[in-house]
């Protein structure tokens, strides 16, 4: 079974600063996918960024980037130039590809607050 660990329950940062959220995972699989999802107070989970384990290049999406260390089983999220709208819960998630059954295993989340 896969496990996902987020060791930072809460974080806060000043607007426009950079913040890094940590995530580690445990799996015996070699091919898998990792995700960061954002959950604002409205509760709707939104995909932030995705990383395929077979790709060595770290994924980036505008202000969001990841540091994927496969050997260390680490998958951190960096948010640059943070904005007030980034305030939310952030969940790291793991998926083992099983055609059609994209079952996600989530961590416990990090509550991020951007301070004006």
């Amino acid at each position, binding site marked *: 079974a896969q496990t996902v660990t987020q060791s930072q329950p809460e974080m806060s940062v000043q607007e426009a600063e950079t913040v890094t959220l940590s995530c580690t995972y445990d799996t015996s699989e070699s091919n898998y996918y990792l995700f960061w999802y954002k959950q604002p107070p409205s509760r709707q989970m*939104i995909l932030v960024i995705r990383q395929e384990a077979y790709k060595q290049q770290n994924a980036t999406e505008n202000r969001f980037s990841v540091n994927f260390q496969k050997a260390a089983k680490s998958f951190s999220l960096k948010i640059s130039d943070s904005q007030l709208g980034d305030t939310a819960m952030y969940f790291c998630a793991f998926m083992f590809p099983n055609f059609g059954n*994209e079952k996600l295993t989530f961590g416990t989340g990090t509550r991020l607050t951007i301070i004006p």
Partner: protein
Amino acid sequence: GAGVSQSPRYKVAKRGQDVALRCDPISGHVSLFWYQQALGQGPEFLTYFQNEAQLDKSGLPSDRFFAERPEGSVSTLKIQRTQQEDSAVYLCASSLVRQSNTGELFFGEGSRLTVL
């Protein structure tokens, strides 16, 4: 519809009552998932449908939980004889099965169940 729609958004039940939670996925999405999110925790997988077939129900916590998707679109999660430990947000998500390699799920806003 434009997004995944869930109803009711809030439900208060007395212990022992039965409840039904509805999910209307994005039109054309073959895969449908139910997750349970306890307060302060990450979502946990309950069950998965591909069209009308329930292919994975390994996450259902007890036989009081039952899910169906009879026509391959709308799904209902039913909880019988509710207990206080059933209090949680129930999230529904859908995806196009042919995009299984992307792993992107589209989530609804959830139904918050409170059992008194």
